[in-house]
């Protein structure tokens, strides 16, 4: 649905995005993460036809965003990181304004707007002036706005920033609901735990370059965590477990951790088998209380994959 090829954007001497290649499949929720100034917003603005790339190209549904700007805009719902509002419009008028701008038929507009207001829980604010809404409500209104023309692709630049925990959870649930409706969603956020829960794919960008793109399982593979396990044995049995496991040919590395009788085990990639590890421990006469693959949080993966260099 979204394809970016060798995309470069420069502002004078500053290279905001450098030869970026990216693909997002239809119906995916793609989490776009990176430090401040990494080039996330610039990439999203290019995809929304608001900026022209210096080099390279970007396609949405097979259409070049530079050449077919107007057609691309019909497909995309873009929510910027900071949403400007028209002070003197009411919520319904504001949404109808954009519905009309996206050529939604007049007779359908009311039902469409009622629907998105219901979806974003703003139906009781229909007659409120836009600038009287709180920050969280304005964010929701922004989300309602991008939905009025039923776009196939949603590009959301930090949609949950400034929201309280409840509103964040609601937005997360809303996005999951939109995914089930078949929308392709590209979302950037600094709250990585949220992305972790809802994104199918993640892209990590730093200094304008994509340092990683793939599923969360692929992050583990990239960080060589896919063949690493944590085990807990009976009290006082950790040293013996290490001794036995280290003598096995398919074990690369084994070490006891702390005082909780926990050990970390790295097994040979080609012979990776959790069952063989369990069998070896039990056959060694020890109690196996727990054995599970090592998990890493997206925050930690982000820290490991990026260097924190700001352009």
């Amino acid at each position, binding site marked *: 649905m979204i394809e970016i090829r060798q995309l470069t954007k420069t502002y004078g001497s500053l290279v905001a995005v450098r030869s970026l290649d990216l693909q997002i499949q239809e119906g995916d929720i793609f989490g776009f993460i990176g430090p401040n100034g990494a080039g996330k917003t610039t990439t999203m603005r290019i995809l929304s036809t608001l*900026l022209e790339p210096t080099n390279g190209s970007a396609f949405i549904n097979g259409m070049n965003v530079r050449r077919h700007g107007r057609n691309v805009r019909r497909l995309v719902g873009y929510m*910027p990181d900071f949403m400007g509002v028209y002070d*003197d419009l009411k919520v319904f008028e504001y949404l109808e304004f954009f519905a009309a701008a*996206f050529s939604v038929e007049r007779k359908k507009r009311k039902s469409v707007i009622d629907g998105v207001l219901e979806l974003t829980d703003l139906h009781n*604010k229909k*007659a409120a002036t836009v600038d009287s809404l*709180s920050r969280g409500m304005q964010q929701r209104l922004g989300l309602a706005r991008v939905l009025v023309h039923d776009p196939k692709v949603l590009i959301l630049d930090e949609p949950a920033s400034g929201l309280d925990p409840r509103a964040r959870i609601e937005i997360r649930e809303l996005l999951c609901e939109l995914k089930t409706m078949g929308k392709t969603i590209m979302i950037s956020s600094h709250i990585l735990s949220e992305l972790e829960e809802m994104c199918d794919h993640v892209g990590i960008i730093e200094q304008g370059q994509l340092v990683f793109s793939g599923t969360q399982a692929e992050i583990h593979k990239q960080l060589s965590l896919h063949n690493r396990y944590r085990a807990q044995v009976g009290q006082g049995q950790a040293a013996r477990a290490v001794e036995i496991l280290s003598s096995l040919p398919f074990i690369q590395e084994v070490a006891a951790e702390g005082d909780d009788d926990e050990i970390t085990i790295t097994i040979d990639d080609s012979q990776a088998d959790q069952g063989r590890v369990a069998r070896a421990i039990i056959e060694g006469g020890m109690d196996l209380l727990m054995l599970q693959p090592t998990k890493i949080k997206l925050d930690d993966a982000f820290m490991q994959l990026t260097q924190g260099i700001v352009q």
Partner: protein
Amino acid sequence: MTSRIRTIIGWFKPNRLTGPIFTKELRVTSRQKRHYLLRFAYIMLLSLFVLLAWLSAVDYDSTGSSMYRMSDAGKTIIMTITWFQFVSLQLIAIVLMSTSVSEEIYRGTMAAMLTTPITRTQIIVGKLLSKMVQLGILLLISLPLLSVVRIFGGVPWNYIIAANCVTLTAAMFTGAVAMFYSILFRRAYSSILLTLATGLVLYMILPLILGLIFLLATLASSGPPELAMMVMLYVNPSSALGVCTMSMYSPGSMAAGRMSFYWPIHCLVMLGLTAGVLTPCIFMVRRVSLRRAFGKAANYPLPLPPTLASRPAVSPPTPPALPPATQPAPSAGQAATPPPMPPPMPPPVVVVVPAATDTMTGVRRITGSPLLWKQLHTGKRLSGKTVRIVFGCIAMALILLLYILMGSLDFLKESGTQAFFIIMYLLVGMFSTSVNAATTISTEKETRSLPILMATPLSDWHIIITFAAGILRRTWMAWLLLLAHILVFTIVGYLKPILLLHMLLLIVWLNVFMIGSGLYFSSCYKKTTAAVISNMGFGLAIWLIIPILAGILGMGESIIVNANPVMQAAIVTVGAEGDGNGFYDWAGGNYDDTETAAKTTLFMFLWLLGYSAAGFLLLWRAKVRLRRKLF
């Protein structure tokens, strides 16, 4: 005792009045390029006016050698400099102060400042005085020139001191008025326009009305009320400077006799008036800042959300069960004790509210182009509406009074009076169109709503054209006043009907051209104030500066002078005088061969074509630039 003395001395420290604001403002100002550009532009303009004054004071004989009286030249040049300073410093004060408080309020820095021990007085006075320092520097720039020209003779020091003091206090008062509006209005152009309108009323309309009243009193043989005239001199800086200038030219006149004692009093009066304007500023700044900081929600009484009742009650969260792997295994022999019971959760609060209703109170439905609809229907709920209505009513009352006074003196038949009214309305229309056009795109940029608009499939031309329609919608009233004046006086018989056609042609090209230039500058800048100043500067350059330069270069009787819309309005009005012979005095025209109404119509049509072409070119440039500098 010593500490008490120190405290008393502390009361008189200048720092006490301004706090750290003064230093901060000076520091910030010194780092802004625009102030250096401002000084450069000021010097260039000053030099231009001095050159003009010199050329007007010097006569050349047939051999090409100059023949002039040094003292006359010196007086003319010094008068030019002082009046230039008087006008330009007030305009600069308006621009400098128009954003002084609003910027801080809307960036949130004012609210932060109010949490410090800095007092409101220090904020207001500190800001005003720091800007006065900038103006003082501009005054000082021309001081060496004044000193040099004084060598020519005939100019007393007293005049230079008086003129500088009158100028500075007038600028201070104008700056205080601009600051007052800056607290009330977010946009700089609103403050600029309202300050200019206030200046127009205080310094022009009111004196004119007073002058007419004096004239009526004189005609009624009761003589001009001396006290009223004195009051006008004390409170009107332009009158004060006028009397100072008169006294320099004719030292023995009545004005000269009064000058020595009245100008310091006038300065004190202006300082008092400045303090009078600053007082409400001091009281308002905190309230306005805090209202902004805490949001505007309180200003809009919203109905209690009716869906609260229909929303499912939030059940208390249940503590998650610990996964077995992380649960510590009970040691041998230790009896498994049940975990302590959590405290009972309070019952869910039930809010009884009215049932949900599909309320659409005051919501208007959009028909046709959404952008056109927005341009035509919005702007009615803007803040400051009451202030605008009050000002509008005052202006209308003053204009009506002016008509009555002019009518009672039988002046309305005069072509000069008609030209005065028509030019006044024309300037209001031009000003209104210029400002509105220049704010259209830049306001969308400032509020960050332009990127959202540009992400819709609306075409760039559609956006530009609807913006133009919106400008027409907001400015039609000013043009209607002009046409209404002409219509009324045509019916009365004071003007010929052809003037309506001429003026319509003028209004059409003015709108096309000024909307084009305004939208172009608006697309160039992110800041509304920069766009407004550029657009107005552009108008001044092509219709004032270039004709003046043309005059210097001996091209005064050329097409450049005729290109000026004010000149065109004056020529067609005088030409259409009811009792006149229909002579249209175009620059460069042959006086023997009277320029006819038909010829003038052709001229006006050609101007319409030329300016409209330029206007559409500028509109196209605005369209090209629309997607640039979005962020």
